[in-house]
């Protein structure tokens, strides 16, 4: 084969590869564009559904998703991107805060949590909104996957209150704390428990500001 024909073959091969790349990238871009609105809408709907799970809609009478303040990336919440705190009120009086937190140390990566905390500092409810824990093993932290339907693991936080003087108790039992874990999948429970504790400490500490600032402002 002469040098020239090798060049021609290489060029042709390169052009074919580029053509395939362009066609299939365009296919993905088109699919992304065609589905984006529908996916965003259902993500929003999911969010509201999840909020209703941590905080019953009967507890407040304001437009929850419209009453929010922005948070910078806060270390105790485990978030590395800006987030929002939603404020539930009844007759204008503060009822609860709804905010997101992340447990960075799950068994397979980050576990996203949604937490509702009463103005008194008590937990209304906690739910896992995103996780990659092992199916059938660590995924009991997600209430839908929990086999214990009567008393799902995540509900043991309901009504719990974070107290600085009892810092040591806010741990799973295996670490000497007061919260259960499921044997063989302690890491998932430990990550969630510690993250909820850190988030509550942060929210309780900044309670005045989180409730007091006008909607739309930033902490």
């Amino acid at each position: 084969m002469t040098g020239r024909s090798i060049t021609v073959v290489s060029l042709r091969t390169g052009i074919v590869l580029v053509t395939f790349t362009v066609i299939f990238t365009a296919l993905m871009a088109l699919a992304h564009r065609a589905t984006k609105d529908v996916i965003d809408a259902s993500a929003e709907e999911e969010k509201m559904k999840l909020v209703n799970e941590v905080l019953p809609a009967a507890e407040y009478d304001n437009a929850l998703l419209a009453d929010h303040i922005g948070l910078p990336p806060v270390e105790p919440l485990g978030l590395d991107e800006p987030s929002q705190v939603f404020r539930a009120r009844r007759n204008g009086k503060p009822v609860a805060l709804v905010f997101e937190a992340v447990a960075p140390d799950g068994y397979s990566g980050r576990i996203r949590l949604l937490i509702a905390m009463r103005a008194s500092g008590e937990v209304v409810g906690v739910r896992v909104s995103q996780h990659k824990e092992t199916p059938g093993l660590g995924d009991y932290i997600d209430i839908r996957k929990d086999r214990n339907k009567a008393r799902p693991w995540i509900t043991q936080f309901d009504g719990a209150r974070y107290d600085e003087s009892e810092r040591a108790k806010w741990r799973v039992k295996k670490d000497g704390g007061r919260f259960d874990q499921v044997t063989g999948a302690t890491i998932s429970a430990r990550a969630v428990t510690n993250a909820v504790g850190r988030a509550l400490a942060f929210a309780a500490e900044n309670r005045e500001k989180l409730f007091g600032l006008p909607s739309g402002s930033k902490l």
Partner: protein
Amino acid sequence: MDMSVYREITHNGIWKQNTGLVQILGLCPILAISTNVVNAVSLGLATILVMAISNLAVAALRNFIPYEIRIPIFILIIAALVTVIDLLFNAYLHSLYLVLGIFIPLIVTNCIVLARVEAFAAKNGAVASTVDGIAMGVGLVLVLAVLGAMRELIGSGTLFAGIEMVIPGLEGLQILPAGYPGFLLAILPPGAFILLGCLIAGKNWLDARKARRAKVPSAPPVAAPAQA
């Protein structure tokens, strides 16, 4: 092509060349997901879809793909198709997506898809390739279902736990007494290896018995190509 070709393809996919028991391909999702029946079968169904579509696409485009760069192009096609399927599921079959969603991207890592594209779709027509993708997928679903059922039953004493997320209204079955403490080994990956080993042994035994009955000297067990 006549029907016997398709029968051969189907027999290959489901029994003779079963992906889970003979080719031992795609162990990563098999071991990770087969902790219960519902997860295992869900992943299997998503795999059937991806295999059928990628086999179809590659077979249809095979005359445009230069031999030297076929592998990157196959990977490109599979990854693009999986992304599109993922997006379409998310948008239009959202409740199903919530169940299968985490499995669909996992399928890209399943070398069985690339293996069938390379071994079959690159050399055969579009229809035969689609049938091959489906048959291989069905063979995988069967192994996943049996493995999932064994691990779930031994590990947690239930069957079909979580089915209400796929088919609302149905409930999982508690097979062993409610106080069953569970057997962690079956849930953990080593349990998957052990039980998969039992399944492979069982299949080889059935084949060997059939060969003996046919009075043909039993072929020595073929060493399966090991691959993660």
